[in-house]
């Protein structure tokens, strides 16, 4: 089980299945998690479930909808809705692996995390550890449908590249790109979209 003391808690689990889960947090807690970040839910049986943030959704309610149509809303009331009102933000996470007994696996975990399990943002060391076991977890991302896979890849690769560069493995990113090309080369339209997106990282 990872040392949670250094990780930043970003929310608690609302619902989950084996391949994805959703955590909730308040708007005021929303400064840390970012699209594509590696996160971890720690289960009681010493299993850590790892995932990437695929979506952050801001919920509304009747009052917000009513305010949206208002001509002029004082800044104070915008702040009120953001910081005082109890509208949870939903963080959607794609499961990409797990670790047990210190061993990283890029398969789906045997069980999903449970309700109200705490969700943590992984620190650099954890990102380095998870991404240093090959690239097979990329397949989970590529399986996504109706979601901006390219953007997710770019966000994740950019985070992982920064981390891997900092631990002296600058070739990690190159190998990741090559792996992606091999995985996607039979799907020309999709691969070119991914590469278009990755080109922006260069």
């Amino acid at each position, binding site marked *: 089980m990872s040392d949670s003391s250094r990780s930043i808690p970003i929310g608690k689990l609302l619902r989950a299945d084996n391949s994805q889960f959703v955590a909730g947090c308040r708007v005021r807690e929303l400064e840390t998690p970012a699209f594509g970040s590696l996160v971890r839910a720690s289960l009681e049986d010493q299993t850590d479930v790892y995932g990437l943030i695929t979506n952050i959704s801001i919920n509304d309610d009747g009052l917000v909808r009513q305010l949206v149509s208002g001509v002029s809303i004082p800044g104070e009331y915008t702040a009120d809705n953001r910081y005082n*009102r109890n509208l949870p933000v939903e963080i959607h996470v794609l499961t990409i692996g797990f670790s047990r007994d210190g061993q990283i696996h890029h398969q789906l975990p045997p069980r999903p995390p449970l309700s109200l399990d705490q969700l943590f943002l992984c620190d650099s060391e954890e990102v380095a550890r998870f991404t240093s076991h090959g690239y097979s977890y990329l397949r989970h991302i590529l399986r996504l449908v109706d979601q901006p896979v390219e953007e997710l890849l770019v966000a994740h690769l950019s985070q992982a590249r920064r981390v891997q560069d900092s631990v002296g493995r600058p070739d990690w990113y190159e190998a990741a790109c090559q792996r992606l090309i091999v995985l996607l080369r039979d799907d020309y339209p999709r691969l070119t979209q991914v590469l278009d997106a990755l080109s922006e990282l260069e």
Partner: protein
Amino acid sequence: MPLNYAQLEHSRGQFAAQYAAWQAELNNRASILKGLFSEAAAKPDLLRQAIEEAEQQLTNLYLAKPTDEPILTHKGLPCTPASYTLIAADGSQIVPSRHRALQFGVVNVGLIKAHIGSGEAPEIRVETELLALDQIQTAEGTLIGEDEVALLRDLAERKLIRQAVSPDDLEPVITLTDGPLDVFYRSTIQGDRGQEVQREVFEIDQDLRRRGVVTAGYIDKPGSAMLSRMLAIFQCKRQGLPLESNNHELNLSDRFILQEILRLPGERSAIFEAITRSARKPASSLPVAFFYLNVSNDENEPCLVRLEFPLWVSEVPGLVDMLHAVIYKEAQVLDSHPYPYLLHRSHELAVVKRVEADEIEVMLQSQLDPEIRLHQQRSNKDYLKGLS
């Protein structure tokens, strides 16, 4: 829940006919009252004289009394101050019920304070007060009713408002509560307890007045007939009849009388003083004034609300204009359904849902001695209600 729709179908034609007749009656009343209102406007001295006589003669009164402003006044929207403090408070309550396993009462007050012009998020407070057992029981040993709990709630609101006002607040400071400022207008509370609350409220009102805080009560979709009662007195006076405010034939909500006068969005009516005479009315209370305000932003759909404030406010130059502007602006935040935003928020903070009430009950039960807990049982009727 099944409904007998065939039966409803049968009755609805009849209902429509009745409703049309009633509307015709109301229209009829409105045209009489509008005529009287114009007449009274033309004879302001006679009107004032009639009201003052009624104040002398009658012990049970709830009506409007003209101030120096002509009663046909309609005043456009003044400028809003650049900065001010608006505090809204609202409360909800759990009324003790003999159907529950535990008899308990809770008053929950939400307060929200915004420093408009600061850009900062408003400050929110929630006060949840579990009523003491002797508070929820009458001298006769029965449980207190809804009105008494409401009174306690209103008092809690006022107390929280007083706490919330701080010397650091941006001037002017306006507080806003839902409903009439006078907390006794509907109270049927017997005995000393009411007097006790009244003293506290009066003390709070005076304190706030000293600090220059404008306390306002916002009455949405007002149903009261204070103007029609005023006109009923006027009619008696003019016809030389004994003064009587409760003329059933002239009973109509003030809105219908003012609707055509306050046609433009943001316009307010003349300021009236609210006159209350009742046997139970405490000796000391702050005089209250009010005006009607069209909070709509659409010329074709006027939306009149009543805004009550202490009479002293009308005597300080500029304060009524400031209140007028601030409340209109505040109601505009919610656009198509104008209502003061902070008042809605304080309600949102205060409201206690049924599940929450149940949670409190469980919490309270868990503290009880097991022996005692055994005897506390929920009524079957209440249990079964929860199932549906």
